[in-house]
């Protein structure tokens, strides 16, 4: 067994162990006791189901929890399914989003957008789609199938890289070019990019993760180039996106990481365990910190620093979206549209999860609920 495979297996084992231990505090799928099953006692027509990005899965779960607890109770409940099994971290297992809806759990936004465009329907209620909306950590693409979707802007995020301490990684910013070289595996030692002498260990999440593809895009590269340079190297490992523990306490490691997810983990946001695993978000091109402190409801939270998504590191900034079918029920669209349920409560929903609210000023270039 080569080192890559050995490492992969070891990492998977570690994830399993640690996730079990943390199951008591995590909340993500509708029924945490039975991940991958729909809300109990609800028919397919009583559920709006979502899958997609890991980056704000807990945020959406929290919205669902709050929304579902309203009085009077809403007509339909929201059911948000994580990118991976919230208990075992198993990826791409079969889940049931609604009665009669057995699908492969999409591990990330790209996979979820592909899945929603399949328009799979419940076998017990053929009027009901199995996926009603997607947590999208990327903007609407040019693919024809995506033109049938409406992307509602939710909040601001960024993707950077995470390292554990500075035993090897530099304390100074890495440049876009250096990051490109690192993730294309054309540089192999931290001392080549301003760090200390030692091999760089590249950790890559699943290819289906939009966080990865977006990050590579920000670097000016893509999965094809990464695979060409890194495939088979003994210093390349797999990890679960946005889970610092899957970096295995490796100070020589580097991985893409969603800034808001990292902030949310540190903030102790509802349902999101602190899985930073010692990892911190690195700076890119400038000293602009990835997060800043803000106060909401008398508490201090770390949120994405807007300055990190402008200037020299602008390409690392992105928006989160909720993508629905163009012909989705208005009730569903009203959740995400400008002035809708989410946008009316954006600070409360977004700040604890480290997201930077877009605001409701529709005269700005970006605002909450902006449709595309």
């Amino acid at each position, binding site marked *: 067994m080569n080192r890559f495979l050995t490492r992969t297996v070891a990492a998977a084992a*570690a994830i399993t*162990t*640690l996730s079990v231990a943390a199951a008591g505090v995590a909340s993500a799928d509708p029924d945490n006791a039975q991940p991958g099953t729909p809300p109990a006692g609800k028919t397919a027509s009583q559920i709006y189901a979502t899958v997609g990005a890991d980056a704000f899965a807990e945020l959406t779960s929290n919205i669902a929890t709050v929304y579902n607890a309203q009085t009077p109770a809403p007509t339909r409940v929201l059911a948000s399914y994580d990118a991976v099994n919230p208990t075992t971290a198993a990826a791409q297992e079969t889940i049931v989003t609604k009665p009669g809806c057995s699908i492969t759990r999409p591990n990330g936004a790209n996979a979820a957008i592909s899945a929603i465009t399949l328009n799979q329907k419940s076998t017990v209620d053929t009027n009901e789609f199995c996926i009603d909306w997607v947590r999208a950590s990327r903007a609407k693409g040019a693919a024809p199938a995506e033109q049938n979707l409406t992307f509602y802007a939710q909040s601001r995020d960024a993707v950077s890289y995470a390292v*554990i*301490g*500075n*035993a*090897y990684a*530099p*304390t*100074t910013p890495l440049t876009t070019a250096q990051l490109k070289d690192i993730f294309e595996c054309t540089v192999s*030692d931290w*001392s*080549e990019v*301003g*760090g*200390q*002498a*030692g091999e760089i260990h590249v950790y890559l999440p699943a290819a289906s993760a939009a966080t990865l593809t977006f990050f590579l895009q920000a670097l000016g590269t893509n999965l094809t180039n990464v695979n060409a340079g890194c495939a088979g190297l003994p210093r390349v490992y797999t990890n679960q996106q946005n889970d*610092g*523990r899957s*970096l*295995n*306490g*490796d*100070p*020589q490691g580097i991985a893409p990481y969603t800034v808001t997810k990292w902030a949310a*983990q*540190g903030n102790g946001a509802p349902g999101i365990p*602190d899985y*930073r*695993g*010692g990892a*911190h978000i690195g700076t890119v091109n400038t000293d602009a910190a990835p997060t800043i402190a803000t106060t909401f409801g008398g508490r201090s939270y770390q949120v994405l620093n807007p300055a990190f998504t402008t200037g020299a590191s602008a390409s690392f900034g992105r928006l989160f979206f909720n993508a629905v079918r163009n012909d989705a029920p208005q009730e569903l669209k009203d959740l995400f549209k400008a002035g809708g349920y989410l946008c009316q409560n954006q600070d409360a929903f977004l700040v604890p999860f480290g997201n930077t609210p877009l605001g409701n000023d529709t005269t700005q270039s970006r605002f909450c609920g902006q449709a595309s």
Partner: protein
Amino acid sequence: MRTRLRLVGASLALAATAVTIPLLSSGEATAASSFSGGNLLVYRVGAGTAPLTNAATAVFLDEITPAGAVAQSIPVPTTAADGNLPLTASGLSRSEGVLSASPDGRFVSFTGYAAAPGATGPAGISLTGSDPASVARVVGVVDKNGTIETSTALPGASAPAIVRSAVTTDGESLLAAGGDGGLLATTRSSTAATVSAGEAATNLATVSRQAGKVLVSGLLQHRLAIVESGAFTDAPGLPSNLLTYGFAALDLTSAGWAGSTIDTFYIANASNRAGTVEKWRFDGTTFVKSGDLDVAGVSGLVADVEGSAVNLAVATPTQVLAISDTNGAGTGFSPAAPTVLETAPTNTEYRGIALAPTGDLGPSAFFRTPAAGSVVSIGAATAPVSVYVASPRAVSGVQISLGGSPAAATKGAGNIWTANVPTQGLAAGAGTITVTATDTGGSTTITRPVTYSGTSAPAGALLAGTYSPRAKGITASKGWTAYAFAKSPDGKGLTSKTKNAKLAFTAYGKTVRLTLGTGPKNGRVTLIVDGKKTTVDLFKAKAGTVVRTFTFTGEVRAHTVQIVVAGTKAAKSKGTSVPVGLVQVTS
């Protein structure tokens, strides 16, 4: 309330010195003050004059009181002097600078690079990228007096790129570890090392000696382990992704892990959340987590047991903090928020932390030559020994012995004291050099094992030198009388005309030269060297001298010499006198 750290078992609390030495200075042989028992010692990188970089940066050892004041800041040498090497650190390499105390608390060890401030690796990369063959990785030791000793270089072939940690038991034997190469064993002032455990790829953060065991923390493997007989025994139950640069192993219950008394770990865990201080308790089978406390960026950790409480001090790059576990013996861990003891000055960062070393009053003494375990020839009458002696008080003397007569050392340049120590009476084989240095506070004795080779001079033998025949060591029978001889050390020789009158001695050297008087009244003398007889006729018409030289081949050894009045004479002589003016031995 400030947490009071207290060094358990400190033999003596030395005079508290609250003098604050400027933080922004560095140099060689700066006089330090003796540490106060219970104070902390922190490895600080940077002189504060410019932002830290990956280049070589001056290192300081800051002594911090439990109340949070800097008692003194001791600069580590940045230039070579008195046998000490420069010891600097990469300014931004945050896994370095671990401090490890000796089990008896007398020494704290640390590591760095033999590079001048500003030096980098090739093409301007980090100092850690420099070739250990050209930029030595250095082990430093600091003692009770704040004396810093940095004469030990790890050899290039096995030295790690990033050197992180070292520990000593006695100021002589050392273990060192870093980013590769495993656990290395060496001796102070040595440039040789052997791999004690691990292999080329073994990446270690910390090596320490606690609870009678050698403990290491590793990166990616052997996260926290005992090392014995070259094998690692990993602590069970700890997180599989544990990353720690500082931990304390304590005996607080009746349980014990892996044949040790260790039942409790306090760990600075750099891979949990943003960094946590954790307590783990051994339940007889595995370690179980008692609790944790968030300390972002935590790196170094030291613990001090005080009754049922355990006081912790931890270091982050920017702060030194105190934490108190008031129920140390219990299984819980829910301490109050840390108290900030000290904040790193601008453009500096903290690394490792330990309790400041303490010990009985007396000078600091570290051997220079000969090297530990080296072969010392006792064939010569004396063997040279040098030692580094320093003290905040006046050093009144240094005595050095090889097991025989001690020799008083003399102070040369800097703090180096040297002596040619007599080897008489020593036997080949294992030996010990003993140095006793004395100042106004007391004495310090250090020893170093060596191996003696050759044959030493027997007691009473004449060693290399010029002697009067009346000198101690030369036995004269009856019948000899003194006479004036200007060239003799005491201005006199011995003369006799009594048949069989004898001068006898043992000479230890390569040659023996006898200066004998000649003249009209002189007779014959029999010279017996190592049993071989030679007769010399000392008759001359006019008075004068004659020299007889006996040269020996092979290694230096002892030779018996007898000068016997023959009682006979040449026909023209008017007497049988035998004047002996001088005895000379060379080696």
